[in-house]
């Protein structure tokens, strides 16, 4: 395991070199070389050109995650607990997911506004589903012996949920969170595609309009980093929370 960093580094280097090599044969328009992209990125950061956009998108992602994640978790609990609610509302949940958000854009701008709200709503809408699904599933498969224990201790339904079902379902719920945080980044960007003049999504559109592929790649790199940081944060939280869950006996 201790060599994993070295291999990781080697792999990364190899991929970079390959990319640089391939890019040598291609128009910058189609595939800019990593050196060019990194330079563009550095330039965008140095001049502060990218900063407000990064800030804007980060805000949207975090807000969207807070609302969408919270909603997904709570709906997941409700629907995992109550079959009636599940059967009643699930069709609408699926509908909300199967519909491409990009197509609903005008309606969102109509219902909310053209500012940050509509982007936050789209982000929330995109990232709430994995959490809902995983939460609802996790709290349904509970060891019946533990359920009996809580019944005999006269735990209320809420207590059983909070003290038994959620802790037991935590690994699966956190898997949902990890999917959600990564989708949130996509959600915010898609939201900004619709009609925004600030944010990394708007920048992507602008860079395409300018046919500035290196800039677009630089932005994609920023987005990737954003996704990774969020993912790693969840991973760290998980490590703290699940210390006594790790059950792999190998």
């Amino acid at each position, binding site marked *: 395991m201790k060599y994993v960093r070295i291999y990781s580094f080697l792999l990364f280097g190899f991929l970079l070199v390959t990319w640089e090599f391939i890019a040598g044969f291609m128009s910058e*328009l189609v595939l800019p070389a990593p050196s060019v992209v990194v330079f563009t990125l550095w330039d965008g950061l140095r001049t502060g050109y990218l900063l407000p956009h990064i800030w804007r998108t980060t805000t949207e992602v975090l807000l969207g995650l807070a609302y969408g994640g919270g909603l997904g978790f709570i709906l997941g609990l409700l629907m995992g607990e109550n079959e009636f609610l599940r059967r009643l509302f699930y069709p609408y949940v699926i509908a909300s997911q199967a519909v491409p958000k990009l197509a609903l854009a005008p309606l969102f701008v*109509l219902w909310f506004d053209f500012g940050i709200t509509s982007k936050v709503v789209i982000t929330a809408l995109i990232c709430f589903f994995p959490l809902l699904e995983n939460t609802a599933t996790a709290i349904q498969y509970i060891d019946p012996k533990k359920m009996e224990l809580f019944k005999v201790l006269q735990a209320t339904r809420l207590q059983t949920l909070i003290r038994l079902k959620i802790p037991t379902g935590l690994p699966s719920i956190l898997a949902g969170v990890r999917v959600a945080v990564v989708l949130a980044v996509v959600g915010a960007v898609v939201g900004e595609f619709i009609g925004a003049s600030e944010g990394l999504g708007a920048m992507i559109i602008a860079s395409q309009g300018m*046919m500035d592929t290196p800039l677009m790649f630089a932005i994609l790199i920023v987005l990737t980093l954003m996704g990774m940081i969020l993912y790693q944060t969840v991973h760290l939280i998980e490590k703290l929370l699940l210390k006594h869950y790790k059950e792999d006996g190998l």
Partner: protein
Amino acid sequence: GSDQDQQTESDEEKGELQEELKVASWSQHITEQTNLLVDEEKSFFREQGIDLTVIPGQGGGDAIKNILTGKADVAFTDPGSLFFALDKGEDLRVIYNIYPQNVFNVVALKESGITKPADLKGKKIGVYSLSSGTRQNLLILLNQVGLTEDDVDIVETGLLNFAPLMQGKVDATAATDTGLFIGKQKSLGEVNVMEVKDHLNFPSDLFVVTEDVFQQKKGQLQKFLTGYRNSAAWMMKSPEEAAKLAQEYTTDGKDIENNMEIIKLRNKSSVSSLTEKKGLGTIDTEKLQRAADTYKQLDLIDKSLNMEEVVNTELLPAK
């Protein structure tokens, strides 16, 4: 809420009444619209007593939807979108001719030998997307030489539309003047350009309002148009300054040299022989009518539209 407070505050500062007005654009904040975006700096609209907000959008349809739902007062949109909305029975008014020139074109590589629209028959032609002006204008161009959609192979290429052309994945691509400029910047090489305006020159963009807004906010609209005309005049007079301001106020204005060229192109499309005579923004009803008729002919719309009923010139200040 707090917007309101800020509003009254700045009113008091200025000691005059500022009226809010929202313009829904077909695009995000882009360099070619710099004159609309720099009011903070240049006060074209504030001088008229207008507190302007520009709402971004994706396509002319968005702009129209935004005025239909009251999210905005004025739409900065293309005639195509206007025709579609009128076709669906919406009650709209055209109040200003932003770009009297048709900015669309079809570009082919020099070696392809495609020099005139008729050569496009049987070829593969790229457009931005199926909803874009590039497609509609390509159809119009084809129609002018008796070709239809079925005679060519139209493919969507996304905004990077010159890349497939350079790679030879398409024979020609439909674009705009600014798009072509950027393409050339990206070493597009030698190309043949067929301008749509050489065949059917109708305006590229218009200010459109709903009948309700038109009736209720005539005064404001008048002030707005004056402001806009002034801003357009300024952009023509001092493109350098505009190019510089674009860096700060637009999403795509990164490069000042490019900004300059794009602004020059837009300045060129903002004038026509008619505007020379009657002032910026004068609407050429006849050309609009011909465009509407062509859309009808192309089956893009069902109804025959009468532009006389739609176009209104009374708000436009005399030169």
